[in-house]
């Protein structure tokens, strides 16, 4: 088949020069913008992201190439996937088109005959997706995208512009190809844009076809480089950065970044400053997060703080910081001085205290943007500057002096055991056992939560576990202390506990408190293996050591997944296995709000001492979700969840109609004598 009698590269010297100039200017402009964008990353705090490369590559395959988290929002997700795969398929074609402007017949080696139909259908699907997205953006306007007052203009305009640019690229490529095919009489891929356009151009003469071809080419070339340079200016930067952002994303859950990467906890005293106070205190990965945010709103859609009207929307942590970074490091001219510290400047103190570190935002983000570490780092800066709410200063002082947030006496830490009904050995009085039950502060001291500790002790005894507690030598695990930014106090608690645990000779640790579990697993080093009691119960039931009576009251039970059991430690099935082992128990799920989409109760530890302004308690919202699922009993496996949910049942006026119970209490109730 002979080539078309026209082509961009043979349209005369002027056009040839233009088609070399456009890419040269476009690439120069893009390079300049990218160099300016990279600049703050080079000045940022270090971040250790080069370990676990195989796991990172797997994440790239799953979340970037596989778009693994997109279907969690089915319509938007599938539309995005069509566009994403369309981009991938058409990337080579667009690059080929650029070269065709000055070199006829250029083709990438390796892209054989299959590529033509593949990119044609990808383009057709992408154009269809663009049309649906435009209607969705323009007519249906999902609430998730709305920008609250005071947080700047909405981004519907940018979204529509980009949809227009994408459509322009797709149509111009289609016309470019169709005009060639019409001139040569070659067949077009059926049901593709060139196929449709070729039909329209069937009657055109060669002169018209040549003009259409040249015009389509020019439009494509200009749009392509215009789009490329536009990407780093706003939320579409993610088109470029998401690959890197996913590669460098969090590979472990439950952990918190060190105060400064590369500085061991013993050397913290040498650091001149703690936490994030100014923009360059963020790590380069955290800046990359800001650049990568596509403003899709999924984080905030699942943020419990946002849902109950607290002054926090994770999406705007990213967007405000991104815009701030853009202002500090403009595309032209020197970097600007920061007008104010971040907290008190673009962020408010209450905004930063609003987070319960539940992790719902990170679980939802399709491209691995992190929030917990940033919040903790901002708090570290606030703590160092003394900006701690009064309501938190007392519990922190008590933790420092007494090892518990209530200021209660150390010697009373083990007093709950007297009413357990089974002997509880304590390392305090020389007791030894292979299993250590780490109780933590709330179950040790809170009168209501002591019942969990007592039930746990009975279950351990019944399951034949030889266990002990540390008694007064146990200190608060420091889990919340660390997440509230008081790193040095956490380090002190960690040292005391580590020493006591090692001295006890325990070979494994069991805890009923997911916060303690998470701290001992992820924040401590060099301890024996740590299990949550629900895992141990599931094993005990399977092994026949625990036998349960039938639940006889016909009520529906639902499991509230504690954030630090589920999302942060991946323990979803063990508590369900335990519940399902109770004969006759009817269990319902809070569909859409269970497992990794569980909704935080309001948070543990220090969250109990600090109330951020809110329209509704998170616990109340959670109780309503359970009620909507048809449950009368909310089972949880965390003393903080139980505290918040029991309170919420009272606040919601549902006493007598709803009940909250800890998994251990429930199993203890159902034990066969």
């Amino acid at each position, binding site marked *: 088949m002979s080539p078309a009698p026209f082509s961009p590269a043979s349209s005369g010297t002027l056009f040839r020069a233009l088609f070399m100039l456009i890419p040269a200017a476009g690439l120069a402009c893009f390079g300049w913008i990218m160099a300016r964008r990279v600049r703050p990353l080079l000045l940022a705090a270090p971040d250790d992201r080069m370990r676990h490369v195989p796991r990172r590559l797997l994440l790239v395959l799953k979340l970037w190439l596989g778009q693994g988290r997109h279907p969690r929002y089915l319509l938007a997700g599938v539309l995005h996937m069509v566009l994403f795969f369309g981009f991938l398929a058409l990337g080579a074609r667009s690059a080929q088109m650029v070269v065709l402007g000055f070199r006829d017949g250029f083709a990438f080696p390796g892209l054989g005959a299959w590529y033509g139909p593949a990119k044609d259908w990808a383009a057709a699907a992408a154009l269809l997706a663009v049309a649906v997205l435009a209607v969705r953006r323009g007519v249906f306007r999902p609430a998730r995208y709305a920008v609250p007052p005071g947080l700047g203009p909405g981004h519907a305009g940018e979204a529509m512009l980009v949809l227009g640019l994408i459509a322009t690229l797709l149509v111009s490529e289609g016309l470019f190809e169709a005009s060639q095919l019409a001139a040569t009489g070659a067949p077009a891929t059926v049901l593709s844009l060139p196929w449709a356009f070729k039909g329209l151009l069937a009657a055109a003469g060669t002169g018209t076809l040549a003009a259409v071809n040249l015009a389509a080419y020019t439009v494509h070339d200009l749009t392509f480089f215009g789009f490329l340079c536009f990407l780093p200016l706003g939320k579409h930067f993610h088109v470029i950065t998401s690959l890197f952002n996913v590669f460098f994303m969090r590979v472990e859950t439950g952990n918190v970044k060190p105060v400064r990467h590369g500085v061991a906890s013993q050397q*913290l*005293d040498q650091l001149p400053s*703690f936490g994030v106070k100014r923009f360059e205190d963020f790590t380069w990965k955290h800046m990359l997060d800001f650049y990568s945010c596509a403003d899709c709103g999924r984080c905030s859609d699942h943020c419990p703080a946002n849902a109950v009207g607290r002054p926090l929307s994770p999406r705007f942590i990213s967007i405000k910081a991104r815009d701030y970074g853009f202002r500090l490091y403009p595309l032209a001219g020197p970097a600007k001085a920061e007008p104010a510290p971040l907290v008190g400047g673009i962020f408010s103190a209450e905004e930063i205290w609003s987070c319960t570190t539940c992790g719902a935002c990170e679980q939802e983000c399709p491209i691995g943007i992190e929030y917990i570490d940033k919040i903790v780092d901002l708090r570290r800066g606030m*703590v*160092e*500057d*003394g*900006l*701690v*709410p*009064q309501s*938190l*200063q*007392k519990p*922190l*002082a*008590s933790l*420092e*002096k*007494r090892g518990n947030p209530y*200021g*209660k*006496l*150390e*010697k009373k830490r083990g007093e709950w055991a007297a009413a357990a009904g089974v002997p509880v050995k304590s390392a305090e009085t020389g007791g030894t056992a292979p299993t250590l039950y780490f109780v933590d502060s709330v179950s040790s001291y809170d009168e209501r939560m002591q019942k969990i500790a007592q039930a746990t002790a009975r279950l351990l005894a019944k399951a034949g576990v030889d266990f002990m507690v540390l008694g007064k030598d146990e200190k608060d695990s420091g889990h919340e202390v660390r997440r509230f930014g*008081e*790193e*040095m*106090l956490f380090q*002190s608690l960690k040292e005391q506990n580590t020493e006591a645990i090692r001295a006890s000779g325990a070979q494994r640790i069991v805890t009923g408190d997911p916060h303690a579990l998470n701290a001992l697993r992820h924040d401590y080093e060099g301890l024996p293996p740590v299990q949550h009691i629900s895992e141990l119960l599931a094993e005990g039931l399977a092994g026949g050591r625990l036998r349960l009576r039938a639940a006889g009251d016909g009520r529906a039970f639902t499991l509230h997944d504690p954030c630090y059991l589920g999302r942060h430690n991946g323990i979803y099935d063990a508590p369900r296995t335990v519940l399902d082992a109770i004969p006759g128990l009817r269990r319902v799920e809070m569909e859409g709000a269970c497992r990794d989409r569980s909704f935080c109760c309001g948070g543990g530890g220090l969250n109990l001492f600090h109330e951020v302004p809110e329209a509704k308690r998170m616990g109340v919202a959670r109780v309503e979700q359970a009620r909507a699922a048809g449950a009368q009993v909310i089972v949880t496996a965390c003393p903080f969840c139980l505290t918040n949910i029991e309170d919420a049942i*009272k606040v919601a006026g549902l*006493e007598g109609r709803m009940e909250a119970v800890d998994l251990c209490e429930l199993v203890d109730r159902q034990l066969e004598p």
Partner: protein
Amino acid sequence: MEIMVCVKRVPDPAENEIGVAPGGQDILRDDLVYGVNEWDNYAVEEALRIVEREGGSVTVVSVGAREQAEEVVRREMAMGAEQGLCLADPAFEGADGQGLAAILAAAVRRGSYDLVLTGALADDGAAQVGGMLAALLDWPYASLVNRIEVRVGAPLVVGREIEGGAQEVSEIDAPCVLSIQTGINEPRYVGIRGIRKVASAEIPVLGAAALGLDPSTLGARVRRLDYFVPPAGVGAEMLEGSVDEVAGKLVDLLKAKGGIK
């Protein structure tokens, strides 16, 4: 503005279970943990804010056994006070309020302070040192201060909380002594890191001789006879019923007793 703030080491009732020792002469001290008297934190914070606005420096002073006084002085230096001062001498042990005021007055006279702040009272005290200190110095005094406005070349303006939650505003000439009420500000947090940062700061220690005090004049003139926990009285009324019923009864009672209108 040169400001001295007097602080005291006390057992915080929020972190301790206070019991009376056998014999009634003291409380049980075995399991106590100590900290800075809560009111004094507000006084130090206020002094720091004045200095941040107006310039000058803050000196924190405490009377007590050397290590104990140093512990609280260092903690307040971690808040940002530039200088610390410990007033320690065996002769100071057992001093009553008047004795403490005399010791502090001697320390104040050694410097050139424009303002001396104390907490309005201490968890274990009798709310008397501020007033006696001002009298011994013959300086003007305002108590229960919850607002301080510093004006250039003019007397200070101080707000005082008075009975019933009303606010009184007065002028007072510097140098003066002010006793500070909680709520005047939100004291900044001091953690382990802050204290370690000032761990090597020099804190001078002055005894009776250095202060020019005659130990024989410092003995307590008020002597404690007894501590005891009074028996529970009668008159408490438990309201029973559902939450709504209890709330209704409570509102009725408060109305009946004039608590609400």
